[in-house]
């Protein structure tokens, strides 16, 4: 459901509310326009399955905030636009949000899109909240791009340290997809693992369009590692693992948050046993709110969301926006991007429903607890928690 579709009804409700308030001599000025913010996500194209689930989560949150009376009596309204996970479409979506809908802040994701939009955000002093992209560069895109999602360094550092220190692995092989996500994270893994006393014995890239990984996998086998870290995307990583097992490489496999997904187990079956992934949000077993959220997915949509932790972050984004708006309205400040940024940094620590506490650091990064997950008996089980 689009937040806009409900507008006529809400306007009537707002008019009624205004009348009631002016009768009771309360300030009639409160029931003004709804509080708008933007959401630029891939709704079509290859990444749409993830984008659409994430938007759905955000829509639920907006509906819930409004059901509880909105923000300081005003309704929250989310304007959703498609980016196709493509930089140029992303720029158009951002321009549209900034200059037509005049939002002071908007949510975006996918590293290339976030980077492409950053000049627009800086020029127009509109806050871009990256929710889900993890490129390390996102922290350096200027004053108006912030992330609420931990960047690659957080979970890759955790998984590399865990392998070297807790699991006692000495020889790691790193297999990564040759794109933004893969190259940056693979470097982080190599640095952290080496620093923790291990040795990276193979460091192999593969093409994003590849459907056969025998070459790099044979090189990995020849290097005789005792753990393999795969830094790929949701779509290719299960296939890489499947081929790896077929080639008789039985050592443990670790990966990162994109792989923490029911689909991995569905696709790999037994071959998924022992795969370690990270989750940057608490799971259903850690938090009753997450359990209820997951139950809602199963009840209303009939399945689990694609990329559960990402949808949790997206669900929380409107709550963060609402908190900032609420602060601005309390202080009677105009709702501009500049004020939004100042207020967000003034609040700094947010307590969010599905991902817990979030602190925005001065260097545009955030710290989060990393949950290491492992496939055991056909299900994801929590292996360790790294603060």
């Amino acid at each position, binding site marked *: 459901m689009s937040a806009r579709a409900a507008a006529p009804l809400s306007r009537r409700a707002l008019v009624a509310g205004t009348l009631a308030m002016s009768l009771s001599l309360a300030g009639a000025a409160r029931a003004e326009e709804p509080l708008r913010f933007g959401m630029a996500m891939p709704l079509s194209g290859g990444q749409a399955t993830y984008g659409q689930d994430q938007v759905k989560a955000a829509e639920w949150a907006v509906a819930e905030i409004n059901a509880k009376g909105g923000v300081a009596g005003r309704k929250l309204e989310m304007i959703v636009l498609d980016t196709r996970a493509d930089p140029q479409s992303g720029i158009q979506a951002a321009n549209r949000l900034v200059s037509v809908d005049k939002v002071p802040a908007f949510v975006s994701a996918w590293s290339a899109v976030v980077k492409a939009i950053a000049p627009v955000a800086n020029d127009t002093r509109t806050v871009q909240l990256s929710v889900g992209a993890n490129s390390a560069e996102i922290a350096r*895109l200027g004053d108006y791009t912030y992330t609420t999602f931990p960047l690659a360094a957080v979970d890759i550092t955790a998984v590399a340290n865990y392998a070297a220190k807790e699991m006692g692995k000495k020889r790691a092989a790193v297999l990564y997809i040759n794109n933004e996500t893969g190259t940056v994270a693979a470097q982080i893994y190599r640095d952290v693992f080496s620093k923790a006393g291990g040795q990276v014995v193979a460091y192999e890239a593969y093409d994003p369009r590849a459907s056969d990984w025998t070459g790099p996998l044979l090189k990995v086998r020849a290097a005789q590692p005792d753990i393999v870290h795969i830094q790929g995307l949701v779509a290719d990583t299960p296939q890489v693992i499947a081929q790896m097992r077929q080639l008789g490489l039985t050592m443990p496999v670790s990966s990162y948050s994109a792989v923490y997904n029911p689909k991995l187990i569905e696709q790999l079956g037994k071959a998924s046993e022992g795969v370690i992934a990270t989750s940057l949000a608490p799971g259903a077993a850690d938090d009753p709110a997450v359990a209820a959220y997951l139950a809602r997915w199963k009840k209303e949509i009939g399945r689990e969301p694609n990329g559960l932790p990402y949808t949790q972050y997206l669900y929380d984004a409107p709550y963060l926006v609402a908190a900032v708006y609420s602060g601005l309205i309390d202080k009677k400040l105009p709702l501009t991007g500049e004020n939004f940024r100042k207020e967000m940094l003034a609040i700094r620590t947010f307590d969010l429903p599905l991902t817990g506490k979030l602190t925005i650091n001065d260097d545009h990064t955030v710290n989060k607890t990393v949950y290491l997950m492992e496939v055991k008996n056909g299900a994801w089980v929590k292996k360790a928690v790294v603060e």
Partner: protein
Amino acid sequence: MDYLITLAILIGLSVALASSFNLIIGYAGLVSIAHPVFYAIGAYVSALLARDLGLPVPLAMLCGALAAAAASAAVALPSLRVSGDYLLIASIGFQLGVLEAIKNISVTGGAGGLTNIPAFLVQDGGRGAYAALVIAFAGLTVWLNWRIAHGPYGRALSAMRDDETAFAGLGRNAVAMKVAVFAFGSGIAGLAGALYAHYFRFVTPEQFEILQSAALLTMVVVGGVRTTWGPVLGAVLLQALPQAITFVDLPPAILGPLQGLLFTGLVLVFMVLRPQGLIAAGEAWHPAKKYSAKTYSAKTRGEAR
């Protein structure tokens, strides 16, 4: 307002790209779909020269266009000497190869894309001035293409496309002509790329891939190949339509698939209902009025039907 200006810039760049692409595949009949790679070369060369070597932006843009033209000539020369289909293969290979190189070299920012590209004109003249520049450039491209296609050179092009052997028999050099047209069209694409880079200030290799080739081809084919206004119409339509859809308040669950279906849907509809495109090309070459007697063109058209 910024939104409309940015849209105008994107439409202008698409018009220039589609129009120059039409010159290559339409008028000259050179089968190549690698137009976006010359767009990419223009963007990257200009951006890197301006950012890392401190070249003034207009000069960097010119270098970008020249680099694209030079690269296209280098691809075309060996492949055109063999035969037409080889150009298609060579150009696709070139496109994949260049993009792969961009993805793996650190100076181009790798797969993550090139950031911090210096801006041009926007600070001093405003976005409107930039849009005016781009639209003037697009207009000039369309005009030049019209002049080339409908002047004496166009008649020669048309003859070469229709029967290369006969054309060579008349003592004309087909290879030189093909290379010149290919380089000119690619140079325009390079300049468009440079204009893109210094406005949007971020480029990534993925935006120049085969998908972009398909979008450009759609613009030319849907608009009408071998016509002056067809590619223009196609470019405007295919840039503006996806934007117009977002103003109809549709739920995201419908909006996404609808946008995705737009391109393929349009191609399918046109293939069945109007294969000649929105604007149909005449069956035979006809000159601009300036160059001919009216009777000549009327007579040839009548005969062709």
